[in-house]
């Protein structure tokens, strides 16, 4: 029993020793100082607070990990970190210390008693944290409506645009908090929801904490809108001092354009890109910065009942008209000078078409245009000259000319109108009135006749019978070709055609035998002669006699030919040819010719059909 107790105590002792050792090790690594302080400890919502985390460690090594405090109720405007190592004398001995200081510039999000969470650090195997910090934040004095709250003066409003003393940035809105950027581009616009054709002024500002040694801007990308440049710095930028939070900057307007959207829908103004050189940046490798892309939501123009409205007339329009003469004859012309002045993109407009009662109007081919920019507003004027002729002597004035336009400032349509112009038309002398309009005089007269057919004669290719007429010839050709082919096949096996084929073959065979006769080749001659007769007999009787004996031949031929004597003559001739082929003493040329002629007569007799026995064929000679 005491062994169990002994073992138990021993284990506990070992465990305690280990714990002590680890604790001592952690104790050895414990920060010398680790605090979180916030100043001031109370303020109002518009103030800024500074939170400082101070860490001291012995030695030269920093912590393994540092976790910053939780700033849930605050915006972190800026943060800095400082790390140093120094030596101190303690108890007569020199010791090294590592110091790390983190500073945070804060702005409260809300009011009340706000908490800042502890900062944490891991040193060795231990984790350490500071105490949290509490602040009391009250509302701002203006929100309280205190009597001593000064009214916002106009000068203060103007000061919102830091460049107001120089090139202004209409629609200026301060940039949001930056994350430690020392140089950046900011973009502002007069409106983010214009209508089609309304001028939108877009201004880019350069903000810099450091000195800008060199800056170059890249051209803007194209966008689906008409763009008119309002400002571009000539030689140098005009800087103004400004603060973002408590961080001082210098700012300058670097570009300003007037954008006139062409179509409704989303429109993105592309970012402006700049190449900046500041101290520390090599001149040959400038730093690229770009402004954010600016989204615009372009609304369509509202519906209007005026059919003569030109959608390019968006802005403010005024008209002035005058005549070059106020008295003229009925056959003369006058010129109407029309000046259109517009605040907006007048260069997008087309020549107004005028319909003036009592006049024939000829529109101008060109016009004079002047453009200018006044107080950031694009303006222009155009001068048109219309050539007019009166249609009647009773006309007494040129009525007011109206031009509808859309005023985006008022958000409605308006009509610009000129003053009516008095004019006096003097009638023509009587003799001249009989002269008709030159145009009508040249026109061909109406076609004669007082009645008209309900329908004109249809075009030939659109008549029904034409389609049949087109289709018939190919159809007939096909029928003809089919019939011809059928007839040829039928005729090929007719007795007449067969007889013709046999005759041709017979004539060709006899010619071949004749050739052998001329060549004095007796063996071949008689072979060809017997072959000619045998082929003819086979073709005309459809018998295969090549390998048959004479008795088989006789039996077969007697079934085909009438007259057994003729068959006997035929067989005798075949035997004669066989003998002559292999005869020791060749036959004479005259005898061969006689055999050739006899073969012809034999074949004629076979072909004649009405067979009569020929004269007996003598052995060894022609009959």
């Amino acid at each position, binding site marked *: 029993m005491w062994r169990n107790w002994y073992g138990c105590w021993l284990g506990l002792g070992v465990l305690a020793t280990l714990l002590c050792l680890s604790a001592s090790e952690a104790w050895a690594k414990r920060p010398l100082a680790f605090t979180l302080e916030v100043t001031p400890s109370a303020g109002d919502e518009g103030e800024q607070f500074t939170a400082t985390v101070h860490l001291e460690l012995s030695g030269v090594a920093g912590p393994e990990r540092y976790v910053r405090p939780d700033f849930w109720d605050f915006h972190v405007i800026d943060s800095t970190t400082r790390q140093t190592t120094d030596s101190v004398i303690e108890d007569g001995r020199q010791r090294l210390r590592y110091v790390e200081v983190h500073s945070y510039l804060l702005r409260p999000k809300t009011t009340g008693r706000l908490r800042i969470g502890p900062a944490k650090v891991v040193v060795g195997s231990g984790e350490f944290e500071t105490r949290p910090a509490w602040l009391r934040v009250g509302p701002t004095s203006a929100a309280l409506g205190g009597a001593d709250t000064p009214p916002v003066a106009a000068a203060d409003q103007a000061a919102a645009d830091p460049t107001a003393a120089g090139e202004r940035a209409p629609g200026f809105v301060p940039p949001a908090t930056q994350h430690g950027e020392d140089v950046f581009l900011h973009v502002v616009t007069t409106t983010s929801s214009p209508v089609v054709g309304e001028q939108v002024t877009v201004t880019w500002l350069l903000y810099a904490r450091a000195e800008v040694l060199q800056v170059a801007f890249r051209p803007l990308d194209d966008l689906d809108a008409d763009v008119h440049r309002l400002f571009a710095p000539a030689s140098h930028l005009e800087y103004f001092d400004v603060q973002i939070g408590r961080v001082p900057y210098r700012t300058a307007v670097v570009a300003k354009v007037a954008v006139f959207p062409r179509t409704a829908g989303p429109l993105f103004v592309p970012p402006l890109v700049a190449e900046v050189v500041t101290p520390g940046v090599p001149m040959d490798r400038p730093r690229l910065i770009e402004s954010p892309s600016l989204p615009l939501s372009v609304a369509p123009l509202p519906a209007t009942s005026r*059919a003569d409205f030109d959608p390019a007339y968006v802005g403010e329009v005024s008209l002035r008209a005058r005549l070059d003469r106020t008295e003229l004859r009925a056959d003369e012309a006058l010129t109407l000078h029309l000046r259109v002045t517009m605040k907006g993109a007048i260069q997008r407009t087309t020549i107004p078409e005028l319909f003036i009662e009592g006049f024939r109007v000829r*529109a101008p081919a060109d016009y004079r245009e002047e453009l200018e920019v006044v107080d950031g507003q694009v303006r222009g004027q155009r001068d048109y000259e219309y050539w007019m002729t009166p249609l009647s002597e009773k006309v007494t004035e040129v009525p007011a000319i109206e031009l509808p336009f859309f005023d985006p400032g008022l958000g409605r349509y308006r009509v610009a109108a000129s003053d009516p112009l008095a004019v006096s038309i003097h009638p023509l002398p009587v003799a001249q009135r009989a002269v008709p309009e030159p145009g009508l005089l040249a026109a061909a007269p109406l076609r004669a006749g*007082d009645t008209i057919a309900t*329908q004109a004669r249809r*075009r030939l290719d659109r008549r029904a019978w*034409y389609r049949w007429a087109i289709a018939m010839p190919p159809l007939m050709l096909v029928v003809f*070709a089919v019939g011809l082919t059928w007839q040829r096949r039928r005729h090929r096996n007719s007795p007449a055609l067969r007889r013709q084929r046999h005759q041709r073959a017979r004539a060709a065979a006899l010619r071949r035998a004749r050739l052998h006769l001329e060549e004095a080749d007796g063996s071949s001659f008689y072979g060809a002669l017997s072959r000619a007769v045998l082929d003819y007999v086979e073709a005309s009787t459809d018998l295969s006699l090549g390998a048959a004996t004479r008795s088989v031949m006789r039996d077969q031929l007697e079934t085909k030919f009438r007259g057994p004597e003729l068959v006997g003559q035929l067989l005798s001739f075949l035997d004669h040819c066989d003998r002559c082929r292999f005869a020791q003493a060749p036959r004479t040329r005259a005898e061969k010719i006689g055999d050739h002629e006899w073969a012809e007569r034999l074949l004629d007799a076979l072909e004649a059909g009405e067979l009569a026995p020929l004269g007996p064929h003598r052995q060894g000679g022609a009959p």
Partner: protein
Amino acid sequence: MLIASLPAGAVAASSDYARAREAYQAHDPVLARALYEGLVAAGVDHPDLFYNLGTACLAAGELGCAAHNLEQALRRDSRAEDIRGNLALVHAEVALRVPDRMTSAERRGRLDRVLGWVSMDGVATFFLIAEILAMAALAWLLVARARRRRRGIAVVAVVVLCSLALALGLALWAARRELDVVSHGIVLVERGRLHAAADPHSEVRAPVHAGLRVVVLGQEGGWLRVRLANGGQGWVAREAVGILD
């Protein structure tokens, strides 16, 4: 031009036709135009009617109406000199009234120009004759081949006649397609606008003027999508274009 048997409606049409002529001769082209347009609406389809209507519009100063109806007449009677003369007059008057017009869109296509001078009836007739002769030559060739006779002349005849028939057939097909399949229109308003979309507030791409010939590509609501002779495309109000049929 009297018809042997006219329905009752046709009698009234002839009466209006005569009245329109009288009105024109009395220097009242507006009344003449109205009467002629009534006849067109009643379904009378004759080149004389369209010619007279176009001439009345010309006299009344309505250039778009004149161009449209004269083009209609020209489609039905392509060789008529009086139609061509009055149409040229319309274009000249447009040139005077609209000096800043888009002249690049006025040129007519090559096929269109050819169709203006070629008679469709003539092409159809020649094609039919050529086809018949080509089929006859083919039949001759078949017979000569069957009878083992000399075929040289037959082959030459077949080649020549088939080529001629093929060429005329292609020409007829192209002309029919251009006249009957592709939809053409004439701008009626003296000065109009070609928009980028079927929306009167959309960007104006180009001006169009009376007498301008367009190819109609489609329709959406009260808008027509058209193509000009210079290739430009856009949307024009339906009432600003007269379709040629």
